């Protein structure tokens, strides 16, 4: 048996175990060990849907950082600004979708401005990009605090997305033989679906289209791409716009699922950092795997060892780095 086959068998066993845990009716001893089946399945689902949100934020980050080598530590600020803008637009117009669109479009525009006025001037100078983007995030956080104050906002989800869905997952069997099914908020499943659609779209764009080819070529050899008649600056501005727009989009989506408050910028910056470090820079599938690991770790940690949840995330990062310093899907440099 080759190494690859061995891993295949291993993952198959893991998948079978998870499927059994989710769909079977648990014996009492398992309920005793893992609190309850409902808690377990909810933690898994919460983790996966949270991973969807993390993926949305981190995919923008990995586009900007991993592909274009623009170190933008103000990515969390983009998320938070998108959330605030989405809140204002959705609140005033009454259309949630308009808020989502505004979050994407405004932040894409902000991203283009940042790329042209900041990152283009500091091309190839990682440390100064880092410092400047940190400076921007400090000023942005302070200005957002000035405009929206320290309160917590909740973006209202439209009716057709609200409510709960009954899933075909049996959590318990009543004494009369009737099974109890798990219900789950519809909105969080929609977030997950959106993340999957966007992730597949990004992957196809990068790997199967001409534009994606140009982006990847521009990262490897900018001068050569420029010489073959492509406007490299325009390509990079577009990628930055998409990356920043995704952060804004994620802000509105995340602000509807959870809430909007000062400090969220750092939280999502950290999440993107860890996701991209674990998954590998510039890899969309890596960001997906990283987001899944971190999201699951966070939610499972929350249920089973609340104090040490954050440490679990950290342990995953250290282990991933120890085994593969370039990230799970990263290319060796």
């Amino acid at each position, binding site marked *: 048996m080759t190494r690859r086959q061995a891993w295949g068998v291993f993952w198959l066993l893991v998948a079978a175990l998870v499927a059994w845990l989710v769909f079977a009716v648990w014996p009492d001893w398992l309920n005793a060990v893992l609190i309850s089946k409902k808690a377990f399945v909810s933690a898994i689902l919460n983790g996966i849907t949270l991973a969807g949100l993390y993926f949305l934020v981190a995919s923008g980050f990995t586009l900007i950082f991993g592909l274009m080598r623009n170190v933008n530590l103000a990515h969390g600020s983009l998320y938070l600004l998108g959330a605030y803008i989405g809140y204002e637009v959705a609140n005033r117009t009454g259309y949630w979708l308009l808020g989502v669109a505004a979050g994407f479009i405004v932040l894409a525009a902000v991203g283009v401005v940042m790329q042209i006025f900041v990152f283009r001037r500091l091309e190839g100078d990682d440390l100064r990009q880092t*410092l400047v983007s940190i400076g921007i995030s400090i*000023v942005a956080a302070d200005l957002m605090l000035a405009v929206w104050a320290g309160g917590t906002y909740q973006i209202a989800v439209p009716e057709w997305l609200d409510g709960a869905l009954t899933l075909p997952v049996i959590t318990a069997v009543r004494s009369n033989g009737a099974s109890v099914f798990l219900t789950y908020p519809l909105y969080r499943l929609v977030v997950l679906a959106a993340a999957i659609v966007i992730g597949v779209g990004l992957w196809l764009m990068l790997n199967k289209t001409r534009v994606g080819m140009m982006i990847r070529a521009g990262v490897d050899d900018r001068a050569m791409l420029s010489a073959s008649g492509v406007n490299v600056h325009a390509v990079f501005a577009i990628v930055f716009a998409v990356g920043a727009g995704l952060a804004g989009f994620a802000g509105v989506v995340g602000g509807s699922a959870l809430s909007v408050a000062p400090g969220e910028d750092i939280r999502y910056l*950290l999440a993107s950092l860890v996701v991209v*470090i674990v998954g590998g820079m510039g890899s969309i599938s890596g960001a997906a795997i990283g987001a899944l690991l971190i999201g699951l770790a966070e939610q499972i940690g929350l249920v089973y060892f609340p104090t040490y949840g954050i440490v679990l995330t950290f342990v995953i990062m250290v282990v991933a780095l120890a085994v593969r310093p370039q990230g799970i899907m990263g290319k060796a440099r």
Partner: protein
Amino acid sequence: MSLTLATDATAPRQTWLEKLGPGHVILAVALVLYPLVASDFFLTQIGGYSLIFGMLALSLMMLAGYGGMVSLAQITVAGIAAYAIAILGNNNSNVLGFGWPWWLAAPFAVLAAAVASALIGWISVRTEGIYTIMITLAIATATYYFAQQNYAIFNGHSGYAGIHAPSFWGVNWRDPKAFYYLCLGFAVLSYAAILYGAHSTFGLTLQAIRDNPRRMRALGYDVTAHKVFAWFLAGIIAGLAGVLLVWFNGRVSPGTIGVDVAIDVLIIAVIGGLRHPIGPFLGALVVVLMQTFAIDIVGAERFNTLIGLVFLVIVFVSPDGILGLWGRIKPHLAQESLRSGP
């Protein structure tokens, strides 16, 4: 690539005063005489605080300037020393507090910080450049959240209060003057150690590793071990700063090691300049002055905007901070004097 290796050996013998240079002598006299003119507020809130943060930024300068490793976890290292003082010594939070005397607790705290720093270094030296920044930022944030949620060791959100600076030799070291001199003493010690260390065998090896790790590996040096040891040494300085910080504040909480503070330390080091060990102290003074007085200029709560903008301008204009700015202006000034008279 080229290193000034042989200068010390070939230079003619100088007296220690000449070696020190007039700049250092004037600075030393000014710093020693500062308490004669300064009020208590200027002694501790400006003087002591700047020196403490100068030491923190100095430990970052050592890693970044000589080792090429930019760390955002220096406040985390200092925080470990501060928490160690609270846990090993006395506090009035009714959690832990082993009541060790200061002369036992303080060295242990510094040692714990240095070991923690080496550990952080060991994790992050696998990466380089921007990746080091990200990993140390992730470590700093994780530690912050952990301290906030852990009640058994870190006493959670409220942290520890009621930690007193020691009194010995008939001096209460929390008194403004005494505390200022205490900070000054340790700052000078760290500064001198860095100046000396930069020209030691280890310092030169570290700088050579920064410039060309592959060549140094080929020459048979253990690159990782040297880098981790540099982290250990930087951890000693950051740990000392942490001990002073907890004596200064009288308390330590997750807010002490927050992400904003971690970034402040980087800002201080960069504003001052990473080229020379004096830069961090310069930056600390500028930032502390701004933090203290910006409130009067731009109103109650917007001083972060001002600091951020000043920081942005300095990074944009001069990559080497104030020291770099000075280095650029100096030739112009010299030319001006040559051009005297119409």
